[in-house]
């Protein structure tokens, strides 16, 4: 019955194991959805990771730069997203142009403002010191060529196998990153080339317009929405009532898919889920509308992130931040997120990653600790299922361990091993389960040793030790797995010792009453294996000194009885009876033998 119940428990444990795997997969999926950074960071854009961990640096200085940038935009575009809504138009292209020159001094600007100024100068026919600028451009082109060469070398080397283990040293992500850097260098070199061409007095106005349009589109593609919008503003003010159509060469409508187009067309990272490609826009006005909507989106998203951070909704903030990095990379709203906030998001992601690791490692205590820590910051983080998961499975593991112990006691080693395996797989780091398993293993070992000991004692016929260690051996003997022959032999030994102990007790009592012949008969009646026991022999020696005549007569009688000489046996019994007149055993022998003789 017990074995049947244990077999059912094993089947139940195996079914539960499948359910457990499903539960783990569900939790991992949920964690992956909660924070992509935490679960699969390698697959995320490098930019995002580096952004989260980037130094706080000069956020104040950056904020100053972005403030200047916004004023330039406000001066140029009447319906700028950064402008307070007023009825009066306070735009001033001239003021904007003056401020634009100042922006070049900020490293965040990446010289874009100066390029815009160059385009404006070209368009308006303003003279520039072409020779000096040409020298500077040549120098930059040389530097970019060297940089490109270095990056291409790095890319090539990233495919080289390691001499030690034969594996390549870089991941595909790292190679993609290098490719992106090469593309950036190419784009920058192209810009310098374009500017160099614009310096020539041979370039026509149409060409300059075309170049400016192309430059605007490139800025938009690079997600430099404010610069692009500023450029649009300058373009519009340069050609009042003029050509506002985007040239097909600068921005071909319905262009082919990325990677198959012109080599010089700036590409953008395609990772992530948010749209990063520019929609089909045919006019500067359309472009402006697109850029403004992107800027407004970025402003709104930043506000949302701030709100989420205030409410400690770090998972949601992380998700939105990831979208911003993909769609508004150079927006001030993104670039001015404080280091502390970014770190909070990163830490939250790390905690989720640690939970994911703990789920994989089945470290339930760690899961509970991390969940508590997250819930302390985010009271509505929705971790109830993780908590119940972490509470439920150590209990189950302990249950299987206990069942394994029962299987061991029932002598079912196979089931014991199987249940122990399930228990340890379920909670490999749980101390209580580990201790239980260790105890079972030790007991199983002891049982093995005890079984060997029992075999040895039974084989030696040691009834005294068998009886004295009965408490130890009893569970083993009762086990259905023990050899029935061994069991029978052991039980016989126990019966022998019991008979001996009863005889000794009776003998001692008779001896105390002075009934030595009776005591002798009692000892003499013991079966062969125990009649030579030291305890019996010691008593026999003592008693034989007290009644030698009786013993002689009794032994003679017994011998004759064995030799089937009842008359002589009777004679000796009669003599024994003289020594022990009230001995019932002898009297009955006399009656028995006498009756037999008389009937003949």
């Amino acid at each position, binding site marked *: 019955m017990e074995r049947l119940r244990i077999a059912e428990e094993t089947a139940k444990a195996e079914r539960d194991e499948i359910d457990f795997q499903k539960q783990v997969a569900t939790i991992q999926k949920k964690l992956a959805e909660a924070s992509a950074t935490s679960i699969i960071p390698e697959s995320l854009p490098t930019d995002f990771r580096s952004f989260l961990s980037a130094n706080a640096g000069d956020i104040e200085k950056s904020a100053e730069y972005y403030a200047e940038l916004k004023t330039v935009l406000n001066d140029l575009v009447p319906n700028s997203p950064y402008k307070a809504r007023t009825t009066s138009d306070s735009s001033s292209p001239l003021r904007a142009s003056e401020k634009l020159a100042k922006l070049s001094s900020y490293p965040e600007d990446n010289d874009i403002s100066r390029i815009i100024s160059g385009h404006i100068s070209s368009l308006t026919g303003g003279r520039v010191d072409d020779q000096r600028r040409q020298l500077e451009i040549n120098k930059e082109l040389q530097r970019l060529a060297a940089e490109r060469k270095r990056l291409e070398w790095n890319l090539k080397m990233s495919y080289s196998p390691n001499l030690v283990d034969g594996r390549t040293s870089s991941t595909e992500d790292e190679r993609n990153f290098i490719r992106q850097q090469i593309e950036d260098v190419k784009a920058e070199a192209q810009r310098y080339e374009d500017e160099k061409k614009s310096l020539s007095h041979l370039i026509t106005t149409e060409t300059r317009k075309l170049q400016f349009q192309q430059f605007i589109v490139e800025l938009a593609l690079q997600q430099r929405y404010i610069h692009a919008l500023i450029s649009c503003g300058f373009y519009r003010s340069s050609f009042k009532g003029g050509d506002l159509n985007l040239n097909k060469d600068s921005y071909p409508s319905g262009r082919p898919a990325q990677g198959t187009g012109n080599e010089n067309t700036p590409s953008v990272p395609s990772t992530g889920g948010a749209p990063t490609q520019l929609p089909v826009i045919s006019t500067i006005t359309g472009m402006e509308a697109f850029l403004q909507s992107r800027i407004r989106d970025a402003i709104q998203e930043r506000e949302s992130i701030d709100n989420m951070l205030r409410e400690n909704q770090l998972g949601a903030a992380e998700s939105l931040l990831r979208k911003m990095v993909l769609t508004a990379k150079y927006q001030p709203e993104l670039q001015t997120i404080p280091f502390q906030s970014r770190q909070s998001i990163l830490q939250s992601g790390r905690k989720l990653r640690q939970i994911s690791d703990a789920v994989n490692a089945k470290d339930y205590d760690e899961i509970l600790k991390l969940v508590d820590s997250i819930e302390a910051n985010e009271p509505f983080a929705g971790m109830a299922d993780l908590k119940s998961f972490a509470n439920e499975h150590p209990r189950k593991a302990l249950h299987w361990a206990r069942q394994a112990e029962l299987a061991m006691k029932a002598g079912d080693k196979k089931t014991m091993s199987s249940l122990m395996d399930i228990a340890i797989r379920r909670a490999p780091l749980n101390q209580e389960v580990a201790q239980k398993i260790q105890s079972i293993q030790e007991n199983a070992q002891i049982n093995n040793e005890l079984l060997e000991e029992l075999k040895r004692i039974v084989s030696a016929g040691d009834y005294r030790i068998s009886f004295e260690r009965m408490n130890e051996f009893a569970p083993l003997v009762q086990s259905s797995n023990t050899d029935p022959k061994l069991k029978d032999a052991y039980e016989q030994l126990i019966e022998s010792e019991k008979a001996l102990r009863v005889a000794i007790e009776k003998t001692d009592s008779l001896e105390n009453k002075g009934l030595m012949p009776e005591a002798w008969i009692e000892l003499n009646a013991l079966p062969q294996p125990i009649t030579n026991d030291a305890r019996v022999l010691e008593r026999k020696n003592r008693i034989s000194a007290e009644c030698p005549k009786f013993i002689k007569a009794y032994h003679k009688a017994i011998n004759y009885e064995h030799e089937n*000489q009842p008359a*002589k046996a009777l004679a*000796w019994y*009669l003599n024994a009876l003289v020594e022990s007149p009230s001995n019932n055993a002898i009297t009955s022998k006399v*009656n028995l033998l006498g009756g037999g*003789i*008389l009937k003949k």
Partner: protein
Amino acid sequence: MARAKKFQLGKNYIFLTVIGLISLGGFSFLHLGSSQKFPQLSEFPVENYLEKNGIIEREDFRLEGKVENILLRSDNSNTFLVSIKPTNFNYLLPVILTSQKKSIQREQILVMKVHADSSEVIKCDDYDLK
């Protein structure tokens, strides 16, 4: 007259003497006759019997001893199993005897003609009280 009295006394004396002699002779005859019961038989070898040194089967022996106990009697009440303590021995022997005209009682001393059957059971063929 005195002589006649003397003669009468002498005759009575002689008569009494004769009677006495006759009585004494009868008593002596009886006494000597009983102690000499089964004189031709050899004494039963008690120790040999008990120690299994062999006795001649069906040979008759003379056994004298005291009835120590009447152990059993047969259904017809004629045959007894008695324990006899042979004279001059400190052992008991079981003997089967059939009651004759003289009744058997404990403490009686019997002189018996006995033999051992094939099972070495001592059987009394004849006995007399001593």
